[in-house]
Protein backbone atom coordinates (compact mmCIF):
# COMPACT_ATOMS: atom_id res chain seq x y z
CA UNK A 1 0.00 0.00 0.00
CA UNK A 2 1.46 3.36 -1.02
CA UNK A 3 1.37 6.64 0.88
CA UNK A 4 -1.18 7.97 -1.59
CA UNK A 5 -3.37 4.92 -1.08
CA UNK A 6 -3.09 5.41 2.67
CA UNK A 7 -4.17 9.06 2.38
CA UNK A 8 -6.97 7.96 0.08
CA UNK A 9 -8.08 5.54 2.80
CA UNK A 10 -8.22 8.48 5.20
CA UNK A 11 -10.52 10.34 2.80
CA UNK A 12 -12.70 7.33 2.05
CA UNK A 13 -13.14 5.58 5.38
CA UNK A 14 -12.33 7.85 8.33
CA UNK A 15 -15.87 9.30 8.42
CA UNK A 16 -17.44 5.84 8.29
CA UNK A 17 -15.18 4.41 10.97
CA UNK A 18 -15.82 7.45 13.14
CA UNK A 19 -19.60 6.99 12.79
CA UNK A 20 -19.31 3.32 13.64
CA UNK A 21 -17.11 3.88 16.70
CA UNK A 22 -19.11 6.88 17.90
CA UNK A 23 -22.36 4.93 17.71
CA UNK A 24 -20.76 1.98 19.47
CA UNK A 25 -19.22 3.81 22.44
CA UNK A 26 -21.12 7.14 22.36
CA UNK A 27 -18.11 9.27 23.37
CA UNK A 28 -16.77 11.85 20.92
CA UNK A 29 -13.25 12.10 22.34
CA UNK A 30 -12.80 8.36 22.71
CA UNK A 31 -14.18 7.83 19.23
CA UNK A 32 -11.70 10.30 17.78
CA UNK A 33 -8.87 8.63 19.67
CA UNK A 34 -9.86 5.21 18.42
CA UNK A 35 -10.03 6.40 14.81
CA UNK A 36 -6.57 7.92 15.16
CA UNK A 37 -5.22 4.76 16.80
CA UNK A 38 -6.62 2.65 13.98
CA UNK A 39 -4.95 4.78 11.36
CA UNK A 40 -1.69 4.82 13.30
CA UNK A 41 -1.72 1.03 13.33
CA UNK A 42 -2.46 1.03 9.62
CA UNK A 43 0.42 3.42 9.00
CA UNK A 44 2.79 1.17 10.93
CA UNK A 45 1.71 -1.76 8.76
CA UNK A 46 1.20 0.26 5.61
CA UNK A 47 3.59 -1.91 3.62
CA UNK A 48 1.90 -5.16 4.62
CA UNK A 49 -1.72 -4.14 4.13
CA UNK A 50 -3.36 -4.68 0.78
CA UNK A 51 -5.10 -1.55 -0.48
CA UNK A 52 -8.18 -3.59 -1.39
CA UNK A 53 -8.57 -4.87 2.15
CA UNK A 54 -7.80 -1.65 3.95
CA UNK A 55 -11.44 -1.00 4.87
CA UNK A 56 -11.91 -4.29 6.70
CA UNK A 57 -8.43 -3.85 8.26
CA UNK A 58 -9.49 -0.48 9.66
CA UNK A 59 -12.84 -1.72 10.93
CA UNK A 60 -11.22 -4.78 12.48
CA UNK A 61 -8.63 -2.62 14.22
CA UNK A 62 -11.27 -0.17 15.40
CA UNK A 63 -13.43 -3.03 16.69
CA UNK A 64 -10.62 -4.61 18.70
CA UNK A 65 -9.40 -1.26 19.99
CA UNK A 66 -12.90 -0.58 21.26
CA UNK A 67 -13.06 -4.01 22.90
CA UNK A 68 -9.72 -3.41 24.63
CA UNK A 69 -10.79 0.02 25.85
CA UNK A 70 -14.11 -1.25 27.19
CA UNK A 71 -12.42 -4.17 28.94
CA UNK A 72 -9.92 -1.84 30.58
CA UNK A 73 -12.67 0.45 31.74
CA UNK A 74 -14.88 -2.32 33.03
CA UNK A 75 -11.99 -4.49 34.26
CA UNK A 76 -14.17 -7.48 33.53
CA UNK A 77 -15.80 -9.35 30.69
CA UNK A 78 -18.65 -7.96 28.66
CA UNK A 79 -22.16 -8.16 29.87
CA UNK A 80 -24.36 -10.36 27.80
CA UNK A 81 -27.50 -9.04 29.34
CA UNK A 82 -29.64 -6.40 27.83
CA UNK A 83 -30.45 -3.35 29.87
CA UNK A 84 -34.01 -4.28 30.57
CA UNK A 85 -35.02 -1.04 32.14
CA UNK A 86 -38.49 -0.44 30.89
CA UNK A 87 -38.94 2.45 28.49
CA UNK A 88 -40.46 5.15 30.61
CA UNK A 89 -43.26 7.56 29.93
CA UNK A 90 -40.96 10.44 30.81
CA UNK A 91 -39.09 10.03 27.52
CA UNK A 92 -40.51 12.36 24.94
CA UNK A 93 -39.75 10.71 21.65
CA UNK A 94 -40.42 12.74 18.56
CA UNK A 95 -39.67 10.13 15.94
CA UNK A 96 -38.64 6.56 15.34
CA UNK A 97 -34.97 7.48 15.07
CA UNK A 98 -34.89 8.69 18.66
CA UNK A 99 -36.65 5.57 19.87
CA UNK A 100 -34.24 3.40 17.96
CA UNK A 101 -31.24 5.35 19.27
CA UNK A 102 -32.42 4.78 22.81
CA UNK A 103 -32.94 1.10 22.12
CA UNK A 104 -29.48 0.74 20.56
CA UNK A 105 -27.94 2.38 23.64
CA UNK A 106 -29.43 -0.36 25.78
CA UNK A 107 -27.98 -3.20 23.76
CA UNK A 108 -24.96 -5.06 25.16
CA UNK A 109 -21.73 -3.77 23.62
CA UNK A 110 -20.93 -6.83 21.54
CA UNK A 111 -24.42 -7.10 20.11
CA UNK A 112 -24.37 -3.40 19.28
CA UNK A 113 -20.97 -3.51 17.60
CA UNK A 114 -21.83 -6.56 15.55
CA UNK A 115 -25.21 -5.17 14.52
CA UNK A 116 -23.64 -1.87 13.47
CA UNK A 117 -21.11 -3.68 11.32
CA UNK A 118 -23.99 -5.48 9.70
CA UNK A 119 -26.32 -2.52 9.17
CA UNK A 120 -23.91 0.36 8.65
CA UNK A 121 -21.39 -1.42 6.49
CA UNK A 122 -23.37 -4.38 5.19
CA UNK A 123 -20.78 -6.98 6.15
CA UNK A 124 -21.91 -10.61 5.95
CA UNK A 125 -22.05 -12.89 8.99
CA UNK A 126 -18.90 -14.57 7.82
CA UNK A 127 -17.02 -11.31 7.33
CA UNK A 128 -18.11 -10.04 10.72
CA UNK A 129 -17.04 -13.33 12.25
CA UNK A 130 -13.58 -12.98 10.73
CA UNK A 131 -13.29 -9.38 11.85
CA UNK A 132 -14.51 -9.96 15.40
CA UNK A 133 -12.95 -13.39 15.95
CA UNK A 134 -16.39 -14.95 16.31
CA UNK A 135 -17.99 -17.95 14.67
CA UNK A 136 -20.61 -17.31 12.04
CA UNK A 137 -23.30 -18.81 14.24
CA UNK A 138 -22.25 -16.57 17.15
CA UNK A 139 -22.61 -13.53 14.92
CA UNK A 140 -26.02 -14.78 13.84
CA UNK A 141 -27.11 -15.18 17.44
CA UNK A 142 -25.90 -11.69 18.39
CA UNK A 143 -27.76 -10.12 15.50
CA UNK A 144 -30.85 -12.21 16.19
CA UNK A 145 -30.95 -11.19 19.86
CA UNK A 146 -30.28 -7.56 19.06
CA UNK A 147 -33.08 -7.38 16.51
CA UNK A 148 -35.57 -9.12 18.76
CA UNK A 149 -34.76 -6.63 21.52
CA UNK A 150 -35.00 -3.61 19.22
CA UNK A 151 -38.30 -4.83 17.79
CA UNK A 152 -39.77 -5.35 21.24
CA UNK A 153 -38.55 -1.96 22.41
CA UNK A 154 -40.00 -0.13 19.41
CA UNK A 155 -43.23 -2.09 19.76
CA UNK A 156 -43.59 -1.08 23.39
CA UNK A 157 -42.96 2.56 22.74
CA UNK A 158 -45.38 2.58 19.82
CA UNK A 159 -48.04 1.16 22.09
CA UNK A 160 -47.21 3.81 24.74
CA UNK A 161 -47.28 6.62 22.27
Amino acid at each position, binding site marked *: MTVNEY*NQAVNNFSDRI*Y*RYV*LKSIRDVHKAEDIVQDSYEKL*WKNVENVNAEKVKSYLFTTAYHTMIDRIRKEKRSSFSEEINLKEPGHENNYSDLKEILDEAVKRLPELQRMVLLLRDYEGYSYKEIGEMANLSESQVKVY*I*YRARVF*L*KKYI*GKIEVLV
Partner: protein
Amino acid sequence: MKINKNNYEAYFIDYLEGKLDEKLVDDFIEFLQQNPELKEELSLFESISIEPENVLFNKKETLHKQKLDSEAEFNKAAIANLEGDISQTEKTEFESYINEHPEKKRDVSLYAKTKLHPDEAILFNKKKKLYHYSVGKTIFLWSGRVAAVLVLAFAFFTFFDKPVTQIIPDNKIALLEDKTNKKEVNSAAKKLPSEIKKSDTKKLQKNNSKPKSEKIKPQAKPKKSVRESTQGRLNHEDLALNRIPLEIPAELKRITASLNTQLPTASLATIKRYNTGIEQNIYEERLLANIVKEKTGIDKFQFNKITKAGLNLVSSISKDKFKYETNEDGKVSEYKYDSRLLAFSIPSKSERNSE
Protein backbone atom coordinates in the same frame (compact mmCIF):
# COMPACT_ATOMS: atom_id res chain seq x y z
CA MET B 1 -59.01 -58.62 56.36
CA LYS B 2 -61.68 -61.22 55.89
CA ILE B 3 -64.46 -60.77 53.38
CA ASN B 4 -67.86 -59.91 54.91
CA LYS B 5 -71.11 -58.18 53.94
CA ASN B 6 -69.63 -54.71 54.57
CA ASN B 7 -66.63 -54.93 52.33
CA TYR B 8 -67.63 -57.47 49.66
CA GLU B 9 -68.03 -54.75 46.89
CA ALA B 10 -64.31 -54.10 46.71
CA TYR B 11 -63.76 -57.88 46.42
CA PHE B 12 -66.38 -58.09 43.70
CA ILE B 13 -64.65 -55.36 41.59
CA ASP B 14 -61.22 -56.90 42.06
CA TYR B 15 -62.67 -60.28 41.07
CA LEU B 16 -64.37 -58.90 37.95
CA GLU B 17 -61.24 -57.04 36.86
CA GLY B 18 -59.14 -60.16 37.56
CA LYS B 19 -57.11 -58.40 40.20
CA LEU B 20 -58.26 -60.47 43.18
CA ASP B 21 -55.34 -62.02 44.96
CA GLU B 22 -55.18 -65.82 44.48
CA LYS B 23 -54.99 -66.35 48.21
CA LEU B 24 -58.32 -64.60 48.64
CA VAL B 25 -60.12 -66.46 45.82
CA ASP B 26 -60.97 -69.46 48.07
CA ASP B 27 -62.35 -67.18 50.76
CA PHE B 28 -64.31 -65.25 48.10
CA ILE B 29 -65.93 -68.45 46.71
CA GLU B 30 -66.76 -69.70 50.19
CA PHE B 31 -68.36 -66.30 50.97
CA LEU B 32 -70.54 -66.50 47.82
CA GLN B 33 -71.71 -70.01 48.75
CA GLN B 34 -72.66 -68.81 52.19
CA ASN B 35 -74.51 -65.81 50.69
CA PRO B 36 -76.42 -66.93 47.56
CA GLU B 37 -78.21 -63.51 47.21
CA LEU B 38 -74.82 -61.85 46.73
CA LYS B 39 -73.89 -64.48 44.12
CA GLU B 40 -76.87 -63.27 42.11
CA GLU B 41 -75.72 -59.64 42.48
CA LEU B 42 -72.31 -60.61 41.14
CA SER B 43 -73.88 -62.06 38.01
CA LEU B 44 -75.60 -58.69 37.43
CA PHE B 45 -72.25 -56.90 37.64
CA GLU B 46 -70.85 -59.14 34.92
CA SER B 47 -73.48 -58.07 32.37
CA ILE B 48 -72.77 -54.35 32.74
CA SER B 49 -70.44 -52.87 30.05
CA ILE B 50 -70.42 -49.38 28.37
CA GLU B 51 -69.47 -49.18 24.75
CA PRO B 52 -67.83 -45.80 23.56
CA GLU B 53 -69.85 -43.71 21.13
CA ASN B 54 -68.43 -42.85 17.73
CA VAL B 55 -68.27 -39.05 18.29
CA LEU B 56 -65.61 -36.97 16.39
CA PHE B 57 -64.04 -33.56 17.25
CA ASN B 58 -64.53 -31.32 14.23
CA LYS B 59 -62.19 -28.45 15.16
CA LYS B 60 -58.94 -30.27 15.12
CA GLU B 61 -57.50 -27.73 12.58
CA THR B 62 -57.73 -24.92 15.07
CA LEU B 63 -55.59 -26.91 17.41
CA HIS B 64 -52.92 -27.70 14.88
CA LYS B 65 -49.77 -25.66 15.19
CA GLN B 66 -47.51 -24.56 12.35
CA LYS B 67 -43.79 -24.21 12.65
CA LEU B 68 -44.02 -20.40 12.42
CA ASP B 69 -46.56 -20.26 15.23
CA SER B 70 -43.67 -20.73 17.56
CA GLU B 71 -42.48 -17.24 18.51
CA ALA B 72 -38.84 -18.23 18.25
CA GLU B 73 -39.34 -19.74 14.80
CA PHE B 74 -41.27 -16.72 13.58
CA ASN B 75 -38.62 -14.32 14.85
CA LYS B 76 -35.94 -16.42 13.24
CA ALA B 77 -37.74 -16.43 9.91
CA ALA B 78 -38.61 -12.72 10.08
CA ILE B 79 -35.01 -11.76 10.84
CA ALA B 80 -33.65 -14.12 8.20
CA ASN B 81 -36.08 -12.57 5.73
CA LEU B 82 -34.91 -9.10 6.72
CA GLU B 83 -31.27 -10.06 6.45
CA GLY B 84 -31.77 -11.82 3.13
CA ASP B 85 -30.51 -14.99 4.76
CA ILE B 86 -33.52 -17.16 3.85
CA SER B 87 -33.99 -19.90 1.26
CA GLN B 88 -36.63 -19.54 -1.44
CA THR B 89 -38.90 -22.25 0.05
CA GLU B 90 -38.64 -20.73 3.53
CA LYS B 91 -39.40 -17.32 2.08
CA THR B 92 -42.52 -18.59 0.30
CA GLU B 93 -43.62 -20.36 3.46
CA PHE B 94 -43.04 -17.21 5.49
CA GLU B 95 -44.93 -14.95 3.08
CA SER B 96 -47.90 -17.29 2.86
CA TYR B 97 -47.93 -17.50 6.64
CA ILE B 98 -48.02 -13.69 6.87
CA ASN B 99 -50.90 -13.59 4.41
CA GLU B 100 -52.79 -16.11 6.48
CA HIS B 101 -52.04 -14.24 9.69
CA PRO B 102 -52.44 -10.52 9.04
CA GLU B 103 -51.92 -9.80 12.73
CA LYS B 104 -48.28 -10.75 12.18
CA LYS B 105 -47.72 -7.96 9.65
CA ARG B 106 -47.08 -5.49 12.45
CA ASP B 107 -44.23 -7.67 13.71
CA VAL B 108 -42.73 -7.76 10.24
CA SER B 109 -42.90 -3.96 9.93
CA LEU B 110 -41.35 -3.55 13.40
CA TYR B 111 -38.46 -5.78 12.36
CA ALA B 112 -37.98 -3.67 9.25
CA LYS B 113 -37.63 -0.65 11.52
CA THR B 114 -34.76 -2.22 13.46
CA LYS B 115 -32.47 -1.74 10.47
CA LEU B 116 -29.95 0.92 11.51
CA HIS B 117 -28.84 3.65 9.13
CA PRO B 118 -25.69 5.72 9.58
CA ASP B 119 -26.03 9.46 10.07
CA GLU B 120 -24.17 10.89 7.07
CA ALA B 121 -23.95 14.28 8.78
CA ILE B 122 -21.44 12.89 11.27
CA LEU B 123 -17.98 13.54 9.87
CA PHE B 124 -14.50 13.02 11.22
CA ASN B 125 -13.05 16.53 11.42
CA LYS B 126 -9.49 15.63 12.29
CA LYS B 127 -8.44 14.09 9.00
CA LYS B 128 -5.44 16.42 8.84
CA LYS B 129 -3.91 14.53 11.75
CA LEU B 130 -4.14 11.27 9.84
CA TYR B 131 -2.47 12.29 6.62
CA HIS B 132 1.10 11.24 5.99
CA TYR B 133 3.43 12.58 3.35
CA SER B 134 6.39 11.23 1.47
CA VAL B 135 9.93 12.13 2.69
CA GLY B 136 10.42 14.78 0.02
CA LYS B 137 7.17 16.49 0.79
CA THR B 138 7.87 16.34 4.52
CA ILE B 139 11.22 18.04 4.03
CA PHE B 140 9.55 20.64 1.83
CA LEU B 141 6.89 21.29 4.45
CA TRP B 142 9.41 21.60 7.26
CA SER B 143 11.65 23.88 5.24
CA GLY B 144 8.59 26.00 4.54
CA ARG B 145 7.85 26.18 8.25
CA VAL B 146 11.44 27.16 9.07
CA ALA B 147 11.31 29.82 6.36
CA ALA B 148 8.05 31.12 7.80
CA VAL B 149 9.65 31.39 11.24
CA LEU B 150 12.58 33.32 9.79
CA VAL B 151 10.27 35.67 7.92
CA LEU B 152 8.30 36.29 11.08
CA ALA B 153 11.45 36.96 13.07
CA PHE B 154 12.62 39.37 10.38
CA ALA B 155 9.23 41.07 10.39
CA PHE B 156 9.44 41.59 14.15
CA PHE B 157 12.92 43.00 13.76
CA THR B 158 11.87 45.51 11.12
CA PHE B 159 8.78 46.48 13.06
CA PHE B 160 10.55 47.30 16.29
CA ASP B 161 13.77 48.65 14.78
CA LYS B 162 12.50 51.98 13.35
CA PRO B 163 14.85 54.07 11.20
CA VAL B 164 16.59 56.97 12.92
CA THR B 165 15.21 59.54 10.45
CA GLN B 166 11.68 59.07 11.69
CA ILE B 167 12.60 60.00 15.25
CA ILE B 168 11.81 63.64 15.91
CA PRO B 169 14.38 65.27 18.15
CA ASP B 170 13.11 66.95 21.29
CA ASN B 171 14.79 70.21 20.54
CA LYS B 172 13.32 70.69 17.07
CA ILE B 173 11.64 74.10 16.60
CA ALA B 174 8.50 74.26 14.51
CA LEU B 175 8.62 76.63 11.58
CA LEU B 176 5.89 79.21 11.08
CA GLU B 177 4.30 79.34 7.71
CA ASP B 178 4.15 82.67 5.90
CA LYS B 179 0.46 82.97 5.02
CA THR B 180 0.84 85.98 2.74
CA ASN B 181 3.36 84.27 0.51
CA LYS B 182 1.25 81.12 0.39
CA LYS B 183 -1.77 83.02 -0.76
CA GLU B 184 0.21 84.58 -3.52
CA VAL B 185 1.53 81.24 -4.59
CA ASN B 186 -1.98 79.77 -4.56
CA SER B 187 -3.43 82.63 -6.56
CA ALA B 188 -0.59 82.40 -9.04
CA ALA B 189 -1.10 78.67 -9.29
CA LYS B 190 -4.83 79.16 -9.90
CA LYS B 191 -4.25 81.71 -12.56
CA LEU B 192 -1.67 79.75 -14.48
CA PRO B 193 -3.86 77.05 -16.08
CA SER B 194 -6.40 79.59 -17.38
CA GLU B 195 -3.65 81.68 -18.85
CA ILE B 196 -2.16 78.65 -20.55
CA LYS B 197 -5.48 77.73 -22.05
CA LYS B 198 -6.08 81.17 -23.53
CA SER B 199 -2.70 81.81 -24.94
CA ASP B 200 -1.41 79.95 -27.93
CA THR B 201 2.12 78.93 -28.53
CA LYS B 202 3.01 82.11 -30.35
CA LYS B 203 1.95 84.33 -27.49
CA LEU B 204 3.93 82.23 -25.20
CA GLN B 205 6.96 82.70 -27.30
CA LYS B 206 6.36 86.45 -27.22
CA ASN B 207 5.90 86.47 -23.52
CA ASN B 208 9.05 84.52 -23.16
CA SER B 209 10.90 87.06 -25.22
CA LYS B 210 9.70 89.96 -22.99
CA PRO B 211 11.68 90.65 -19.89
CA LYS B 212 10.12 89.16 -16.77
CA SER B 213 10.73 92.32 -14.78
CA GLU B 214 7.99 94.16 -16.74
CA LYS B 215 5.27 91.71 -15.80
CA ILE B 216 5.95 91.66 -12.13
CA LYS B 217 4.19 94.48 -10.32
CA PRO B 218 6.10 96.30 -7.65
CA GLN B 219 5.23 94.86 -4.31
CA ALA B 220 3.99 97.09 -1.48
CA LYS B 221 6.65 98.15 0.90
CA PRO B 222 6.72 96.01 3.96
CA LYS B 223 5.44 97.72 7.08
CA LYS B 224 7.99 98.52 9.65
CA SER B 225 7.72 96.60 12.86
CA VAL B 226 6.85 98.35 16.13
CA ARG B 227 10.35 97.80 17.35
CA GLU B 228 11.79 99.57 14.25
CA SER B 229 9.32 102.49 14.31
CA THR B 230 9.65 103.25 17.99
CA GLN B 231 13.27 102.21 18.13
CA GLY B 232 12.55 100.08 21.12
CA ARG B 233 11.29 102.93 23.26
CA LEU B 234 7.70 102.28 24.32
CA ASN B 235 5.95 102.68 27.59
CA HIS B 236 4.10 99.83 29.15
CA GLU B 237 0.69 101.38 28.21
CA ASP B 238 1.73 101.87 24.59
CA LEU B 239 3.09 98.40 24.41
CA ALA B 240 -0.22 97.05 25.63
CA LEU B 241 -2.10 99.01 22.95
CA ASN B 242 0.17 97.79 20.25
CA ARG B 243 -0.40 94.16 21.16
CA ILE B 244 -2.50 92.42 18.55
CA PRO B 245 -4.90 89.95 20.05
CA LEU B 246 -4.69 86.56 18.42
CA GLU B 247 -7.92 84.83 17.65
CA ILE B 248 -7.54 81.13 18.10
CA PRO B 249 -10.24 79.18 16.27
CA ALA B 250 -11.86 76.27 18.09
CA GLU B 251 -10.76 73.90 15.39
CA LEU B 252 -7.74 74.53 13.32
CA LYS B 253 -8.42 74.12 9.63
CA ARG B 254 -6.02 72.39 7.46
CA ILE B 255 -4.34 74.40 4.81
CA THR B 256 -4.03 72.49 1.61
CA ALA B 257 -1.27 73.45 -0.68
CA SER B 258 -1.22 72.49 -4.30
CA LEU B 259 1.58 73.03 -6.67
CA ASN B 260 0.85 73.25 -10.37
CA THR B 261 3.74 73.21 -12.65
CA GLN B 262 3.66 74.73 -16.06
CA LEU B 263 4.16 72.03 -18.57
CA PRO B 264 6.51 72.93 -21.35
CA THR B 265 4.57 73.25 -24.60
CA ALA B 266 7.58 73.27 -26.82
CA SER B 267 8.27 69.89 -28.31
CA LEU B 268 11.30 68.20 -26.98
CA ALA B 269 14.06 67.15 -29.23
CA THR B 270 14.01 63.47 -29.98
CA ILE B 271 16.82 61.51 -28.54
CA LYS B 272 18.18 58.72 -30.55
CA ARG B 273 19.69 55.83 -28.74
CA TYR B 274 22.02 53.49 -30.42
CA ASN B 275 22.56 50.01 -29.20
CA THR B 276 26.22 49.43 -29.10
CA GLY B 277 25.73 45.71 -29.01
CA ILE B 278 27.43 45.39 -25.70
CA GLU B 279 25.02 44.06 -23.11
CA GLN B 280 25.15 45.84 -19.87
CA ASN B 281 23.50 44.36 -16.82
CA ILE B 282 21.86 46.96 -14.73
CA TYR B 283 21.97 46.13 -11.08
CA GLU B 284 19.57 47.86 -8.83
CA GLU B 285 20.79 48.15 -5.34
CA ARG B 286 17.98 46.95 -3.12
CA LEU B 287 18.00 45.69 0.38
CA LEU B 288 17.01 42.06 0.98
CA ALA B 289 14.68 43.28 3.68
CA ASN B 290 12.75 45.40 1.16
CA ILE B 291 12.46 42.47 -1.24
CA VAL B 292 11.08 40.22 1.52
CA LYS B 293 8.70 42.96 2.59
CA GLU B 294 7.39 43.38 -0.95
CA LYS B 295 7.01 39.63 -1.56
CA THR B 296 5.34 38.82 1.71
CA GLY B 297 3.40 42.05 2.15
CA ILE B 298 4.88 42.45 5.58
CA ASP B 299 5.17 46.20 5.10
CA LYS B 300 1.37 46.33 5.40
CA PHE B 301 1.26 44.14 8.45
CA GLN B 302 -0.50 44.70 11.68
CA PHE B 303 0.37 43.25 15.03
CA ASN B 304 -2.77 41.11 15.00
CA LYS B 305 -1.77 39.58 11.68
CA ILE B 306 1.62 38.60 13.04
CA THR B 307 0.04 37.08 16.10
CA LYS B 308 -2.28 35.01 13.92
CA ALA B 309 0.55 33.96 11.62
CA GLY B 310 2.53 32.82 14.65
CA LEU B 311 -0.47 30.96 16.10
CA ASN B 312 -1.16 29.30 12.74
CA LEU B 313 2.43 28.17 12.66
CA VAL B 314 2.23 26.74 16.15
CA SER B 315 -1.07 25.06 15.21
CA SER B 316 0.42 23.44 12.10
CA ILE B 317 3.55 22.31 13.98
CA SER B 318 1.42 20.75 16.73
CA LYS B 319 -0.76 19.00 14.13
CA ASP B 320 -3.85 21.02 15.07
CA LYS B 321 -3.55 20.15 18.74
CA PHE B 322 -3.19 23.82 19.42
CA LYS B 323 -6.03 26.01 18.19
CA TYR B 324 -7.28 29.52 18.69
CA GLU B 325 -10.55 31.30 18.18
CA THR B 326 -11.18 34.83 17.08
CA ASN B 327 -14.01 37.17 17.93
CA GLU B 328 -16.05 39.37 15.56
CA ASP B 329 -13.30 41.99 15.44
CA GLY B 330 -10.83 39.40 14.28
CA LYS B 331 -8.95 39.48 17.55
CA VAL B 332 -7.82 36.29 19.24
CA SER B 333 -10.35 35.45 21.93
CA GLU B 334 -9.41 31.96 23.10
CA TYR B 335 -6.50 29.53 23.00
CA LYS B 336 -7.15 25.79 22.98
CA TYR B 337 -4.86 22.84 23.36
CA ASP B 338 -6.08 19.31 23.00
CA SER B 339 -3.86 16.23 23.12
CA ARG B 340 -4.19 12.78 24.60
CA LEU B 341 -2.39 13.75 27.77
CA LEU B 342 -3.44 17.34 28.18
CA ALA B 343 -6.32 19.55 27.12
CA PHE B 344 -7.05 23.10 28.12
CA SER B 345 -8.81 26.21 26.90
CA ILE B 346 -7.66 29.70 27.96
CA PRO B 347 -9.52 32.92 27.06
CA SER B 348 -7.24 35.72 25.83
CA LYS B 349 -6.37 38.68 28.05
CA SER B 350 -8.66 41.08 26.21
CA GLU B 351 -11.49 38.57 26.34
CA ARG B 352 -11.07 38.14 30.08
CA ASN B 353 -11.12 41.90 30.58
CA SER B 354 -14.29 42.22 28.55
CA GLU B 355 -15.94 39.57 30.68
